[in-house]
């Protein structure tokens, strides 16, 4: 998002918050519009239309599969369906409006658009009217979302498909790149999977189509999180928090701080952040550390800046979105770091992967406890790594953190009854915390090498250079 886009969204948020009636549906319309508006250009022009349509389609179908029977009625949902179809068709009509600053004007053939929209509405209606339980379909939807995710996050697969599509369309493969830019799909997938799993376990609240779509594509958090939970989100949606003077200032401050973090601090740090080119050019380990730290702070300020913007925009709309960061680089150990870095993501993995896996291992196997910890920590962190992309780099990044968490866990156990007396004093505690913070920050910073450099070999070379070994 650009500063201008954020400013426009802030004004829209203020207007929406003051609507006496129809706030929820207006928010829905704006969020749908934003899905199209923020969608980046695609190698094939029409994808910039079809990917947002796909986002909405998946969301509507997921609602139809997960919603409770009592909220599936036509009367409760026809307005939301009409808004969905209306906004999609309106975006398609930009072929006539030619508002190219807002959205592309070369939208697909209108007949095709109408047919697709009609098919989505029909499918949603059929699924919604299906009164029987749909466990198999829910499992299928869960798998399909994961498969799409795997496809989008695997560069070899996307490159193959894009090259194939280019050849079909007699277009040069050099012009299509190697990846799809499906705006917000990573977060979309997590929200959908959360609702499907909670539906399966009977924990999902009954929500209408408007509420569900609002949750999934809520515009402040759509592209960069945080990942809210449906039951919490719906509370704010149904009874928005009042926006008093203090809240107003609070929201404005959060927005301003977020913009400053992202567009000033992070963008400037980007200039000196470690990169493939710098690894080969830099002379001296000292500089390498500076550029590695620059990247470490850049990624923090970039991401937490976007989170601040999302929380600020949410606050203007009467929502209290969950926090995603809590001074992570000041934490004295890796466990606390992961409890304060991208918190909503780690909570998601804890709820839907780590805890179930731990329960399964404890109840179904006789493995020693330390092996269970190793397995659960490493596999969870590798999955978190692969959420960013299915490459060896992200696998190694995940494994680096999984191993770090395991070591910290074991060290904690080992040291529990062996702590020297001086570490128990306030000063000793402070010194240990400071040392822990220093170690944790540097461990995390070194991990970023796998995250940001293009190959594991390069990351290894950078690591050697950092320690003066090349």
């Amino acid at each position, binding site marked *: 998002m650009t500063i201008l886009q954020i400013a426009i969204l802030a004004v829209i948020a203020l207007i929406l918050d003051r609507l006496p009636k129809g706030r929820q549906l207006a928010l829905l319309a704006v969020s749908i519009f934003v899905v199209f508006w923020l969608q980046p250009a695609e190698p094939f022009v029409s994808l910039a239309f079809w990917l947002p349509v796909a986002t909405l389609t998946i969301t509507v179908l997921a609602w139809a599969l997960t919603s409770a029977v009592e909220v599936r009625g036509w009367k409760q949902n026809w307005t939301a369906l009409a808004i969905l179809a209306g906004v999609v068709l309106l975006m398609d009509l930009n072929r006539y409006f030619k508002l190219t600053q807002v959205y592309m004007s070369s939208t697909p053939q209108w007949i095709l658009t109408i047919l697709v929209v009609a098919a989505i509405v029909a499918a949603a209606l059929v699924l919604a009217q299906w009164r029987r339980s749909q466990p198999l379909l829910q499992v299928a939807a869960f798998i399909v979302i994961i498969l799409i995710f795997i496809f989008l996050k695997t560069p070899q697969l996307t490159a193959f498909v894009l090259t194939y599509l280019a050849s079909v369309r007699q277009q040069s493969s050099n012009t299509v790149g190697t990846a799809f830019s499906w705006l917000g799909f990573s977060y979309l997938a997590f929200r959908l999977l959360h609702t499907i799993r909670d539906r399966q376990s009977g924990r999902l609240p009954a929500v209408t189509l408007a509420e569900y779509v609002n949750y999934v594509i809520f515009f402040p958090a759509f592209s960069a999180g945080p990942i809210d939970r449906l039951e919490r989100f719906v509370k704010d949606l149904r009874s928005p928090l009042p926006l008093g*003077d*203090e809240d*107003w*200032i*609070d929201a*404005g401050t959060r927005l301003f701080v977020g913009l400053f973090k992202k567009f000033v601090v992070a963008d*400037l740090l980007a*200039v*000196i952040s470690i990169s493939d080119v*710098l690894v080969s*050019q*830099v*002379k*001296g380990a000292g*500089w390498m550390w*500076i*550029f590695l730290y620059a990247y470490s702070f850049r990624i923090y300020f970039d991401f937490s800046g976007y989170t601040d913007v999302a929380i600020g925009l949410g606050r203007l709309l009467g929502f209290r979105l969950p926090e995603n960061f809590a001074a992570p680089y000041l934490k004295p150990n890796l466990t606390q770091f992961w409890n304060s870095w991208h918190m909503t993501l780690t909570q998601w993995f804890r709820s839907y992967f780590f805890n179930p896996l731990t329960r399964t291992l404890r109840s179904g196997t006789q493995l020693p406890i330390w092996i269970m910890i190793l397995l659960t920590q490493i596999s969870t962190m590798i999955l978190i790594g692969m959420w960013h992309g299915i490459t060896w780099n992200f696998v190694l990044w995940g494994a680096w953190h999984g191993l770090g968490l395991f070591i910290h866990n074991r060290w904690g156990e080992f040291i529990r009854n062996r702590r020297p007396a001086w570490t128990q004093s306030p000063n000793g505690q402070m010194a240990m915390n400071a040392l822990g913070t220093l170690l944790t920050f540097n461990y995390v910073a070194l991990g970023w090498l796998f995250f940001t450099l293009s190959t594991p070999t390069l990351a290894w070379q950078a690591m050697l250079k950092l320690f003066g070994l090349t």
Partner: protein
Amino acid sequence: MNSSVKPWRVIVKAILIFCILNFAFIYIYPWLSAHQVYNHIVPGRFRLPFSSDNHEMLAYNENLSDDYGAMFASHLIAGTPKKPNEYRVVLIGDSSIWGYNLTPSDILSEQLNKLSLSTCQGQQMRFYDLAYLGTYIPKDLLLLQYALQYQPNLVVWGVTLNALALNDTAHVAQMEPEANEILRLVRQYGLKIDTSALHAPTPYEETAIAQKSKIRRWAIFQLDGLLWGATGIDLDVRYFPALKNNLSPEITFDGNSFLNNDDLAFDVITIGYRIAGKTPILLFNEPMFVASGKNSSIRYNQYYPRWAYDQYRSFMTASMAGNGFSYVDLWNVIPPSQFGETSLHLTSAGEANLARHLAPEIQQMACR
């Protein structure tokens, strides 16, 4: 938070503070531009910073051509006090002297430094590259003015036909970012150029909000300084194929088929000597690629038809002799194989060769 906080008060205060800071920037920026990471945290640069929109030229550098003060503050010379035994020589001119597509260690000033020259009195010669890209000679006067702040013993000034001849409105417009400085020269020295394309910035145009691009570039330039310090790279040096020996049959020069003495900006050179005062100047005609293929009987290279360049050389020699200026014509001293991607840009070997040709002339000047 205090419940008495009123949003409108916060907004009014914020606007007020913003307005004050916005206009205070006019007075703050000169201080800011003079205080940089260069020469403090990292070494100064070997040449003035340059970057173009052309992606291949983006390498730990930023375009600050609208702020000569900031450009010079980042240069090595700004952080190098003149030693008692130093004979300081500054080089000014265009991209050929600046060292386009060369690494810092290959540029002309460094090639001259490698020769470890000294004066007849035993003073150690130290050369500094203060040239800047652009074939518009009034820019060289600005360079000269700034260069004089660093107490040079000698100024070596490279010129070529393009710099002296291409002074039409379009080329003057290129100097818009430095309009203030150029207009100052016009006022101070009666420089005869058409300034209709230039306009001095209004006070508003000097405020922070109007200069946000400059602030951004200044900030990035400081960070580039760290990259410069870490890598010693200030330019993305690229490979270019050898120059073509075959030329177009175009016979005109800048649309003209004849050249008058008045078409060349000799007055700018004269003003340069006035600006330099007692500091001697050695002017030299830059070497150029001399083609030998198709149409080389009518053109020397991609830039110059033979007739125009021959006339220029003859006018130049006469004008310099008439004014008693020290001048050396090095137009054909470099073999074609030592030119880079254009007919005026030298390779590292070419710069070294040029340094060897310039060295005796410089020593002769220094020993006068």
